[in-house]
């Protein structure tokens, strides 16, 4: 049930497109693959970049697939902050303009410092979810917002 590499997984419908992946130093694949399945079941088109995905690779996928609704990033191994530290530079260069959603196990250690989440927000992460079940509703809301703004543009 592994996801195919990104290039063979291009959006094939008018559905909302999600770019999904796990951070650069992180090899945890299971949640990633289940999330890809789950989002597809919810009707999203998922470009799953899989594990060990640096910011540049997320940026490339967004660039190559116009209209991406959101970038959904998982990080389990505790390196979220370090792995995302290229995000501000990429954003400054005009990349990754869509919302970035992050979830997983976001810092090292078994006692979590809430400051860790603030640091991630300061890097430019737009949404940090603590529950996977919140992901589809959030994407739905983003999709409604996007549709509304598209409608506004066509008026």
């Amino acid at each position: 049930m592994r996801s195919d590499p990104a290039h063979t997984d291009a959006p094939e419908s008018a559905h909302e497109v999600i770019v999904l992946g796990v951070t650069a130093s992180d090899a945890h694949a299971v949640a990633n693959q289940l999330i890809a399945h789950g989002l597809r079941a919810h009707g999203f088109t998922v470009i799953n970049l899989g594990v060990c995905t640096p910011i540049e690779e997320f940026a490339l996928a967004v660039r190559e697939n116009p209209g991406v609704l959101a970038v959904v990033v998982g990080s389990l191994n505790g390196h979220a902050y370090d792995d995302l530290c290229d995000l501000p530079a990429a954003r400054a260069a005009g990349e990754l303009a869509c919302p970035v959603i992050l979830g997983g196990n976001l810092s090292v250690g078994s006692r979590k410092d809430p400051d860790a989440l603030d640091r991630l927000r300061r890097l430019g992460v737009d949404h940090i979810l603590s529950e996977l079940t919140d992901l589809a509703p959030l994407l739905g809301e983003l999709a409604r917002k996007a549709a509304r703004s598209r409608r506004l543009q066509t008026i």
Partner: protein
Amino acid sequence: MNRDPHRRTDPHAAPEPEYPSMAETVRFARTRGTPTVRDVLARSAKDAVVAIQPRCGVGGHPEMRQLLRALESGARPDVLTLTIDSHTRLNRFAHAARLAATDPGALNGYPLVAHGWQRGRELVEAVSAPVEIRHGSPDARRLFRVAVAAGATSFEGGGISYNLPYCKDVPLAHSLACWREVDALTGDLRRAGLTLDRELFGTLTGVLTPPSISLAIGVIEAALAAAEGVGCLSISYPQGGNLAQDVAALRAIPLLARRYLPADVEVYPVLHEFMGVFPGRRAHAEQLIFYGALTARLGGAAKLVTKTYQEALGVPDARANIDGMRLAAVANSPLLDFVTVDAEQVEEELHWLLAEVDDLVAPVLGAADPARAVTAAFADGTLDIPFSASRYARGDVLPCRDASGAIRYAVAGALSLSPAAVARHRRALGLADGPHSMRTLVDRVTRDINHFLHLFKEIEP
């Protein structure tokens, strides 16, 4: 933009340092007056007492030293570990070095390459238990040199098991070639007088790993290592949670070794305590930890690699790690001699397991160039793993649990298993009667991944 798909070395990494000579390395390990990992394994096998080893790695050097000493004085493990951080695993040495210097606590393991072999030796000398390096590097050549120079006497990994679960786009041919170098150096060391233990990572992606895949890959990596002159191999298997199945898998290891490996190679069965989704509540985690340790004992494992009650939360602290080891050690008690496992069930599992491993292994090990055969087998799916992180395995296999909790193939993909074996699996799952929707299967897999959360009622069905 760096699109090198192998990304195996870091352009900014520091030049390699001078290493001690092989003779010096051998002298260091042999004259310390403490056992090597292989000595510990041999003693465990002889006494039929499972050796105990924690996972442990933190970023800072003084912190790592302190951690090892705390674990040693708190639980007297038989083997100690340097668990390596994931930057170093992926040869992102400059990242690891930067964090080691600026924010070592942010690393999820010990960046041995960044700290260097001299510091590694300080760690080895700080404790009396021998040290293994546990990591997950598809290309571990540099890490291996540092590890050996530091005085570690066991090194985990293999060209398959440290590739497919640990990276996305390193070709198997490349990782196999890198590990061949590691194994050849291990052979050189052996001839120079130091027998390192090489542990193969049968855990793979840890989640619902089918026993026959775990063992097949272990046997293949073992055969490749033995061919390079490695003399001491630990074949590890991850606790799946069904006792008879797990005991059968552990007991299969010496049988498979006899069948596929040269007689002069020592082979030790190792159990990794449950490697999937761990219960979050301490009392539940402790039950699973103990169950794992009892599984190791009943299966005849020479060594057990432990978990902690903080597993579901994050990298554990020293206290939790000590408690996990102490708890596991209780399962070694002579007072539990009376505890046995259903012999018939084990026999039945063992019978099928050996046949399946044969089916998976024979084509590869029978080939003229087994390493090349491995690459081809993963390309066409005759070998495969579930939840592969890498594009170099198809990941078509889908495991589920049967009513007894045993792990079975719901989808066996193109695996070279006999139709009878596949039918048995699907029958056990109640899937004998033809195809099922992927949606249903994924729901079922998800449930089975969370098996212990359900068993302990930590989540709703």
